């Protein structure tokens, strides 16, 4: 029984390491930041979760099980935050070439928001704003 659980935990750790390797491959192969974010967030979260499950199955104590559960919960909570912030920063910095994007809904939405009369936004035609305004 313990030998089977050791083997299963080793397989989970291997799956987790392979997910991190997939994220590393994406760093090499994708052309821009938004593409790299695909595999830095999704398979990497799954890899950390798989490694946590592998540790919980290999070291069969209650402490390991609770740490694994908390690790999984926090990884699921924090990974989308990092992805959203980095993607937002990349898009607003203008480092994403528009030829890599098939559809750009965000540009259409921002144009539509610009065209709407509103006291708080500058009139359309202005590209830059005072540096303190990041709240859009």
């Amino acid at each position, binding site marked *: 029984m313990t030998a089977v659980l050791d083997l299963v935990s080793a397989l989970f750790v291997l799956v987790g*390491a392979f997910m991190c390797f997939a994220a590393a491959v994406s760093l090499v192969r994708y052309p821009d930041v938004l593409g790299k974010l695909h595999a830095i967030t999704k398979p990497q979260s799954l890899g950390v979760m798989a490694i946590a499950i592998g540790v919980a199955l290999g070291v069969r104590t209650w402490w390991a099980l609770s740490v694994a559960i908390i690790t999984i919960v926090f990884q699921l909570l924090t990974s989308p935050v990092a992805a959203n912030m980095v993607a937002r920063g990349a898009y607003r910095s203008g*480092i994403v070439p528009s030829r890599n994007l098939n559809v750009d809904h965000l540009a259409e939405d921002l144009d539509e928001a610009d065209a709407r009369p509103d006291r708080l936004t500058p009139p359309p035609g202005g590209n830059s704003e005072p540096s303190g305004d990041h709240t859009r």
Partner: protein
Amino acid sequence: MTVVVNAILLLAALLLTISALVAIQRIAVGPSQLDRSIGSDLMVAVVIGSVGLWATWADQDTEIVIPLLLSMVGFTGAVSIARLVSERVVYRPKSGEKIRGDR
């Protein structure tokens, strides 16, 4: 620990080492600061995986506090770099407009 389990863990360690080297190369090369922040995020995940691998191999659970804390706060590196390094001018391309990254 049988030979099969040791071989599987050795393969996992090899994959994690290659991932770490690729992440460091991206931190060194990356044409923008956000590429470097993504590379550091991957480095944090590799460290989480490595400590988990060590805990499985050595059958000890005293070090697994490290993956726990890294998964809690490991994202703050990427978030703070993205927050502070993005350009201060609010610039966005209009529909159909070519932006700076185009060649």
